C-alpha cells in the first residue's frame, strides 16, 4: 500500500514538474554560466537545438589526440575522439571524455585579478580582487618596461610546461630576444622526461623522443615505460596494443618494471627489477646477444675472421671487428660488456640470470624488435647511462629507421610569421648587458653543461641569489612551486618574486601570484599543436573554440602579444605587426597552401574544419643495413654515409656510438659529478645510482591513466576512478607489500606516515602483495594545498614534498624515483 502511495506521489510530482520546469531552471544555481535555456519537459523527450561538432585537441597529456567536441544549445556535452585525426582515430583514453569538466569547472578563475595580501604562503589568502584586462596588461608591461630601463631585463623569466605550438610557447624565443632575457623560456623538460632524450643524443645524435612503428614490430622489450598508463601517445598506444595483440604474428612483449601495473599485468613476461638498475639488465642482454651471435650483422657489422666469437671475460683484438653503422663496439666489449654477464646482472637487478637469458634470446631472435624506455630507468642519477644501455639494444638488433623499428619525428610545413623579429631589435636587444647573463637555472653553464633546461634549479638559485635574483616570473602550464622536487624551497623562493600566473585554475602558483591573467580552457582556445614524436611523418593539429569563452579569460598567446605591444621601442611595433594568435596561425597555415595535407587541408579555413594537417610520408628507411630516401614512389634512393650523418645519425662519427663522442666532450665533468673515470666517460656502461632520502624502502610515484596534467586532482570522476591503484574510489592509496607492512605493525587500510630526510607525508595504505617488498608505490599528483575544492587537502600527501632535488648530471632530469623512505603507522 505504501508502495502505491509513493508511486502516486511521484506521478503527481511529475505532472506538476513540467509546469514548474521553466522557473525551476532559471532559479537553478548555475552561477556564472551564460546561455542557459530552461528544459521544458524533463520527463519526456526534450526538444533540442542543433548539435555542432568542432575540432579540438585534448590537453590532458602531451599526446595531442584530436577530439570532436559536441555542443548543443551553446553547451558542450560530449567529447569523442576525432575519426579524422591519425592519433585519436575516433578513440580516447579515460581522461579525454572528462574534458568538459575543465570548461565548467566551478573553481575556474573568472577574469583577471590582482593580489591585495602582500604576504605569501600556503595558508595565506591572496586576497584577489578583479581588475580589467587593461589594468592587468598595463601593470605587467609597466613592470617589464621599468626593468628594461634599469638594465635588468634578464631578471624577467618565463616558465612553461606544456607548450603546444607556434601560438603560445612558440612565441617565447622572439620575446626573449627582443626584450633581452636569457630566461625566455625556462621549460619543464628536466622535470619531465629529459633522460631518454639525452640517452639518444649521446648514442645516435638525436636530442629527441622517438617515433615508433608499432604496427609492424614483433617484439617489445619495455623498460619502465608505462605503456598502458602514461607513455605517449597513450590513446594511440592502446590502439596499437589491440593491434599488436591480435595481429599475425602476435607481438610479444616483455616488461621490466619496479611495480605491478597494467602493462606488467598484460605483458607476456613481467620482470620486477630493483629500482635504478635497468642499465645492468640491458647490458647483460647485450652481453648475451653478442656471445650468442644474435646481433644484426647487416647493421652492426661482423668479425673480419668469421670464426671469431665474443667470449665472456675475453677481449677481442683491435681491428678484428668490422663495424658498419656503429662506433666503438670493440672498446665497449673489451672495457665494459665482456664481464656484464646475466649472473652479474642478477646480483644487481634481482632478476634471475635465467630470465635475463630467455629475454635476451627472444629479443635477439625476433625481428623487428625494439627496446623502449621512459622515466622509470632514467629518473635516477645514472639515468642517461641506463638509457644508453637500453637504446644500444636497438642498434644491436638493427631497428633504427627500420620497418617495425624506431625513428625521429618530422616537423610540419608551416609558413613564416608576418614579420621578422631580427628587424625589430634595438641596441639593448642586440648588444645589451643581458647577453652576458646566464639563465637563472644555469642550464648550459659549467654547472649543467649538457642540460637544455633545469627548471627545478631556478627556485633554489633565486633563493641563493646565484647567479642573480629574479624580479618577475610568468608561468604558463607549469606549477613548479608544487611539482618541483622539494617544492618547499620554491614556496620560500617565490615570496619576493612578482608572480604572474596564466592558468585558468586556482593552482599553487596562482596562490603566490601578484597578478592572474587566466587563459581560456582548451575547449575555448584557437591553438595549434604540431605532433609530439608519433609515427614520424609530419602533422599539426588545431584547437578550434567550441564555445565563446565562458568567463572573462584570454588566450595565453594573446596575453603575451598584448604585453609585447605595450613594451616601449621597436619590440612594441613588432607585436603590433604580429597582432594576434589568429594572425600567427593564419600565417603558419600559409605553408599548407603549397604543401597540402593528405586530408586536403591547404588553408587556415580547411585546417579549422578538419582540425589537422598531415602527410603520411616519412622520408627515410633503413633496410638490411642500407639507408634509403623516399623518391616519391618508394624508398629507392640509397644514402651516402655523409647524408646519413647529416639527416639521421647525427653523432660526431655519423654512426651509432657505443662510445659516445657527446659524452667524451664532457669527460671531466662526468668524472667530477658521477665518479666515472674521464677515459671511460664515453662508454655505454653500468654506473650505480645515488639514492637520496636516507630511508630503507624505495619510493616510486607513478603517473596513472587519470593523471590530467595537474588537473586530475580536481576532477570528481577522475578521483572516483583512480584504479587499479588497489581500490581507488575516493582516495589514492599507498601500496605496500603485506610483509613490509606487517613488519612495521601497519594494518591494511591504516593511515601511514612516509618519511624521508626532507619531512613526511601521510596516506592511507592498501596491501598489495603483487609489489616488491622493498618498494612503496604512491601515484603522484595528489596532496594539493590549492587547485580547487576537490583537490585541496585531500590525502594522500604530495610525493614531491619528500623527494630531494637531485638530478642526473648528464640529462639534468630530476630524480623523482630515486628517494628512499621509511614508513610507519600515523
Amino acid at each position, binding site marked *: 500500500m505504501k508502495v502505491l502511495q509513493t508511486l502516486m506521489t511521484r506521478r503527481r510530482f511529475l505532472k506538476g514538474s513540467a509546469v514548474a520546469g521553466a522557473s525551476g531552471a532559471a532559479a537553478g544555481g*548555475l552561477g556564472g554560466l551564460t546561455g542557459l535555456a530552461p*528544459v521544458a519537459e524533463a520527463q519526456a523527450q526534450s526538444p533540442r537545438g542543433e548539435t555542432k561538432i568542432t575540432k579540438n585537441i585534448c590537453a590532458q597529456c602531451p599526446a595531442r589526440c584530436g577530439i570532436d567536441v559536441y555542443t548543443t544549445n551553446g*553547451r558542450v556535452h560530449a567529447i569523442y575522439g576525432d*575519426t579524422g585525426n591519425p592519433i585519436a582515430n575516433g578513440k580516447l583514453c579515460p581522461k579525454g*571524455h572528462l574534458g568538459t569538466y575543465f570548461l565548467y569547472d566551478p573553481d575556474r578563475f573568472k577574469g583577471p585579478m590582482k593580489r591585495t595580501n602582500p604576504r605569501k604562503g600556503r595558508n595565506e589568502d591572496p586576497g584577489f580582487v578583479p581588475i580589467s584586462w587593461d589594468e592587468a596588461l598595463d601593470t605587467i608591461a609597466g613592470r617589464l618596461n621599468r626593468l628594461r630601463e634599469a638594465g635588468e631585463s634578464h631578471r624577467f623569466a618565463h616558465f612553461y610546461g606544456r607548450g603546444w605550438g607556434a601560438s603560445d610557447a612558440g612565441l617565447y624565443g622572439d620575446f626573449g630576444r627582443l626584450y633581452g632575457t636569457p630566461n625566455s623560456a625556462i621549460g619543464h623538460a628536466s622535470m619531465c622526461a629529459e633522460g631518454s632524450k639525452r640517452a639518444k643524443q649521446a648514442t645516435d645524435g638525436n636530442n629527441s623522443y622517438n617515433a615508433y612503428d608499432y604496427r609492424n614490430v614483433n617484439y617489445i622489450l619495455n623498460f619502465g615505460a608505462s605503456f598502458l598508463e602514461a607513455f605517449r601517445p597513450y590513446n594511440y598506444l592502446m590502439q596499437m596494443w589491440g593491434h599488436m595483440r591480435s595481429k599475425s604474428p602476435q607481438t610479444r612483449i616483455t616488461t621490466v618494471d619496479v611495480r605491478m601495473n597494467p602493462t606488467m599485468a*598484460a605483458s607476456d613476461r613481467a620482470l620486477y627489477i630493483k629500482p635504478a638498475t635497468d642499465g645492468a639488465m640491458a647490458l647483460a642482454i647485450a652481453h648475451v646477444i653478442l656471445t650468442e651471435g644474435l646481433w644484426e650483422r647487416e647493421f652492426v657489422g661482423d668479425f673480419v675472421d668469421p670464426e671469431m666469437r665474443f667470449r665472456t671475460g675475453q677481449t677481442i683484438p683491435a681491428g678484428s671487428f668490422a663495424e658498419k653503422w656503429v662506433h666503438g663496439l670493440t672498446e665497449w666489449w673489451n672495457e665494459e660488456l665482456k664481464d656484464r654477464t646475466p649472473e652479474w646482472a642478477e646480483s644487481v637487478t634481482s632478476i634471475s640470470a635465467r630470465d635475463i637469458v630467455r629475454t635476451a634470446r627472444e629479443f635477439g631472435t625476433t625481428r623487428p624488435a625494439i627496446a623502449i624506455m621512459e622515466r622509470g630507468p632514467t629518473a635516477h642519477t645514472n639515468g642517461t647511462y641506463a638509457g644508453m644501455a637500453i637504446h644500444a639494444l636497438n642498434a644491436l638488433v638493427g631497428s633504427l629507421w627500420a620497418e617495425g623499428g624506431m625513428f625521429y619525428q618530422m616537423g610540419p610545413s608551416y609558413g613564416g610569421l608576418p614579420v621578422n623579429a631580427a628587424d625589430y631589435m634595438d641596441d639593448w636587444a642586440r648588444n645589451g648587458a643581458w647577453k652576458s647573463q646566464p639563465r637563472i637555472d644555469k642550464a648550459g653553464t659549467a654547472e649543467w653543461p649538457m642540460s637544455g633546461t633545469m627548471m627545478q634549479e631556478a627556485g633554489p638559485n633565486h633563493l641563493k641569489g646565484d647567479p642573480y635574483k629574479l624580479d618577475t616570473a610568468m608561468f604558463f602550464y607549469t606549477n613548479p612551486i608544487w611539482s618541483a622536487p622539494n617544492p618547499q624551497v620554491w614556496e620560500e623562493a617565490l615570496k619576493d618574486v612578482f608572480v604572474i600566473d596564466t592558468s585558468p585554475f586556482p593552482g599553487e602558483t596562482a596562490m603566490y601570484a601578484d597578478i592572474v591573467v587566466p587563459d581560456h580552457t582548451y575547449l575555448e582556445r584557437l591553438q595549434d599543436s604540431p605532433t609530439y614524436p608519433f609515427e614520424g611523418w609530419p602533422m599539426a593539429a588545431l584547437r578550434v573554440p567550441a564555445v565563446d569563452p565562458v568567463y572573462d579569460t584570454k588566450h595565453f598567446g594573446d596575453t603575451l602579444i598584448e604585453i609585447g605591444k605595450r613594451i616601449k621601442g621597436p619590440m612594441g611595433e613588432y607585436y603590433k605587426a604580429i597582432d594576434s594568435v589568429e594572425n600567427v596561425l593564419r600565417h603558419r597555415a600559409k605553408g599548407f597552401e603549397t604543401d597540402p595535407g593528405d586530408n586536403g587541408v591547404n588553408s587556415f579555413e580547411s585546417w579549422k574544419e578538419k582540425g589537422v594537417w598531415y602527410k603520411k610520408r616519412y622520408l627515410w628507411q633503413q633496410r638490411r643495413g642500407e639507408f634509403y630516401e623516399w623518391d616519391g614512389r618508394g624508398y629507392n634512393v640509397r644514402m651516402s654515409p655523409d647524408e646519413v650523418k647529416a639527416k639521421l645519425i647525427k653523432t660526431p662519427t655519423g654512426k651509432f656510438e657505443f662510445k659516445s663522442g657527446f659524452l667524451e666532450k664532457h669527460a671531466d665533468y662526468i668524472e667530477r659529478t658521477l665518479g666515472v673515470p674521464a677515459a671511460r666517460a664515453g662508454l655505454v656502461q653500468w654506473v650505480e645510482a645515488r639514492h637520496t632520502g636516507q630511508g630503507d624502502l624505495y619510493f616510486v610515484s607513478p603517473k596513472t591513466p587519470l593523471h590530467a596534467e595537474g588537473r586530475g586532482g580536481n576532477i570528481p570522476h577522475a578521483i572516483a576512478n583512480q584504479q587499479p591503484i*588497489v581500490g581507488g574510489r575516493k582516495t589514492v592509496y599507498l601500496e605496500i607489500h603485506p610483509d613490509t607492512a606487517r613488519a612495521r605493525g601497519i594494518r591494511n587500510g591504516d593511515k601511514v606516515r612516509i618519511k624521508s630526510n626532507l619531512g613526511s607525508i601521510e596516506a592511507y595504505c592498501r596491501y598489495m602483495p603483487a609489489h616488491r617488498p622493498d618498494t612503496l608505490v604512491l601515484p603522484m599528483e595528489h596532496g594539493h594545498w590549492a587547485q580547487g575544492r576537490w583537490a585541496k587537502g585531500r590525502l594522500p600527501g604530495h610525493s614531491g614534498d619528500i623527494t630531494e632535488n637531485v638530478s642526473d648530471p648528464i640529462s639534468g632530469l630530476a630524480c623523482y624515483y630515486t628517494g628512499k623512505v621509511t614508513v610507519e603507522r600515523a
Partner: protein
Amino acid sequence: MAKWGMVIDLDKCTGCQACTTACAMENNTLPGESWQDVLFYHQGKYPSAQMKWLPRPCMQCENPSCVHVCPTRATYKDMDAGGIVFVDWNKCIGCKYCMIACPYGVRFYADEKPLLEPDLRDIFPGSNGQLWSPPYQNPEQDWKRGIGIQPAGVVSKCTFCYHKVSKAPAGTPDLDEDIPELKEYVPACVRTCAPKARFFGDLDNPESQVNRLIGDKHGVRLKDHTGNKPQVYYLGAGAGVPAFEPKPRS
C-alpha cells in the same frame, strides 16, 4: 528487430577505463554511479603475481532477475528495443529489490550519501525534477527508458546507449565505430575503446561480427549458471569473477 549484444575481448582490454568515463559523461552519472565499471583483481605474490580486470556493463539479460522482482514493473525488458532492460523512472519507487536481485551489481541508486565530497549535486543543483543538473548534460532524455539524468529516489542503469543505438538504420548487423556512417549510433563505451576490445551487434543475425567472434573465440557469459543469459559475451582469458575474499586487516 535486432537483439543487441556486446562482446568484450579481455585479451585486448587494457583496463584503461575510457569506457567508464565515456559512459559517465554520455549519461551524466555521478561519481561512483558507474553504469560501466572496470573491476580490478590481483592474486598471488611478488614475483609471480597477477593483476587482472573485468569491464562490467549491464548484461541486458535474456532472463533478467531484476525484472522478475520489480514490484511496480518499472524495470522491464523491451523486446522492441533489441532486448535492452530499462528502468521507467516514472514508475520506479527506489525500493532497490532489483539491485539485490541482479547477480552482476550493475544497478545504482545515487540518491544517497555521495561517494565524493564536495557533492556535485550541491554544485549543480537539480532542476526540472532532476537529481542534479550539470551544465554539460546530454540533451537526450527519456525517463520511460531511464535515459538522461534521473529524478531523486530511483534506480539507474546502463541502457546500451539506447538513445544512440535506436537511431541506427534497421537491419545493421554490427554497429562498428570504425565505419564513419555508423559511429554516432554506437554505445559510448564501445565507440571509445582504444584497443578495440568491444564490439556491438545483432545476436540474432548469424552474419554479424559479434556472432563470429563469439563463435571463433569461444565467447562466454558471466555467471551463466544463474540462468540469466546475458546479452554480453566475454572473450579471452580472465572472464570470471574471483570468489569474494574479505580484505586482510593485518
